[in-house]
């Protein structure tokens, strides 16, 4: 529809500040990181990679980056395995207690992150599992799994359960059905879910903060700790890294939406990832 009449022009005019509000903060992050100044300013005074070099020369920051990547790896692997098997297991099936099962699978999205952070903090201390990245990765896996479940379920929506039955009646075993019937159909959902899981983990701050230890401080935790004292160039570089990751994730998602128009459906449900 063309925006020709005055009211539509008014709407377009009103929306410009709203869109700028959305875009500007993300857009300034990379220029700020490449700023040629000891201070954090925007617009930048010149281009320099000094801050980037400083970031990668600082053990505290590089080990935070490593910790973040490790926790994300744990979250993605567990999230993909559990989310996908759950979506396939529930596809086209109805049984008593099914709403409760789905409710349990989605519940980690609804509980506020700070509550989960406290619960995990106490839980992992009580079983003596502290001081490594593993409990943080497991905690991230708990909140990442529902995303993978939802994206996989969305890509299964078009699969007729009859197809599975015909494959079975033609003699296909469970593994063969998984590989030849389910896998090709869920693959886009799996990839999209893996991206979500990665992004949830790499950005998660509160649980990682509660469970941090000298060897297991993630990038957002390091940023959170430093930002309370000063805005430093290394925080800017770290932000720029995370924005780059986000942009790649977003581009991949846009490609998926354009190709399959499925994967944004669950976005409004995503309650827990952001706070």
């Amino acid at each position: 529809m063309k925006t020709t009449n005055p009211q539509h022009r008014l709407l377009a005019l009103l929306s410009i500040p709203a869109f700028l509000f959305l875009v500007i903060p993300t857009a300034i992050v990379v220029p700020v990181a490449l700023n040629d100044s000891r201070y954090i300013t925007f617009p930048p005074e010149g281009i320099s990679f000094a801050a980037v070099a400083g970031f990668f020369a600082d053990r505290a920051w590089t080990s935070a980056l490593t910790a973040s990547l490790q926790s994300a790896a744990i979250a993605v692997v567990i999230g993909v395995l559990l989310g996908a098997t759950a979506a396939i297991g529930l596809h086209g099936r109805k049984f008593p207690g099914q709403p409760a099962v789905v409710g349990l699978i989605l519940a980690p999205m609804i509980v506020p992150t700070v509550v989960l952070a406290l619960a995990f903090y106490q839980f992992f201390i009580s079983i003596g599992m502290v001081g490594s990245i593993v409990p943080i990765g497991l905690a991230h896996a708990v909140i990442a799994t529902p995303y993978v479940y939802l994206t996989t379920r969305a890509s299964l929506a078009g699969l007729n359960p009859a197809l599975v039955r015909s494959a079975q009646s033609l003699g296909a075993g469970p593994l063969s059905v998984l590989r030849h019937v389910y896998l090709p159909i869920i693959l886009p959902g799996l990839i999209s879910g893996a991206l979500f899981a990665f992004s949830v983990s790499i950005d998660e701050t509160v649980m990682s903060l509660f469970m941090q230890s000298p060897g297991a401080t993630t990038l957002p935790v390091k940023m959170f700790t430093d930002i309370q004292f000063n805005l430093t160039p290394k925080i800017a570089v770290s932000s720029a890294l995370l924005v780059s990751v986000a942009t790649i994730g977003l581009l991949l998602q846009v490609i998926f939406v354009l190709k399959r128009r499925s994967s944004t459906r669950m976005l409004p449900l995503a309650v827990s990832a952001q706070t």
Partner: protein
Amino acid sequence: MSNATLERTRPRGRGAPPGAETAPRRRRNGWWLLLAPILAFDVVLFLTPLGKLVGASFADNAYQRVLEDPLVVRALVNTLTISLASTIVTVVLGYIIAMVLWRAGTVTRVILFAVVLLPFWTGILVKNFAWAVLLQDNGIVNAFLQGIGLTGAPIPLLHNRFAVIVGMVHCLLPYAVFPIFSSLASIDDRLGLAARSLGAREGSVFRRITLPLSMPGISAAGLLVFIISTGFFITPVVMGGPGDMMIANQIDYYARQLTDFSGAAALAVILTVMVSILVAVYQRVLKAGGQHEDN
């Protein structure tokens, strides 16, 4: 039409497959194994920690203790007022953005969706850091305000409630845009055409057709945004001042500063109960609005 992308309503298969009853028992049981990993995982790593948390909250008279703490009362009041203010701003801005998306052509719509999704994909600390850079005393916003002569000296825009709400609205906007957009997209275009052909002006088409018919989206967006707002933790610390701490910050304070686990647990249970009630209302609203959640 790409508005199908946002409908969360999908007819759900065809119920139980007709052959399921007659299939060999072994094969049916095989599929149950697919649910075992996630159930085991969630019981051990989700229900058990939460259960222990609830258990801990009943120790040491914790509920009474925290509710008598003036800092907690203040944090509860802050949580409600900051969440309410953020929700109102978010829904208004979200409505404007959703209207533009609704009116846009396909290509523009995809580009603008990407713009809306960008903050969704960006971590909260990155967003807060960017706002801190923009709003600091020698930041670009203050430079602009001084440039147009609105103020002689920098206005403190950071470390106050205004900054907290700005930071929160920026995080929350995508959550408002999607429900509002999907309820706008479900409006029959012919209603507007009919009204216009009978002489209605754009303003009254909006007031009497578009706005009332998008109310389900507005209430869903408002509730969802409010629910998410109540759990904010990072933004009040990074962008707010000492007087802007919310309930999540009190949980952290009890747990890590006071090392009072039962107090922290009691606060966490209070927050969770509040959120659960709101989530139940939210699902009712979605059902009433015809976009039910298919689970």
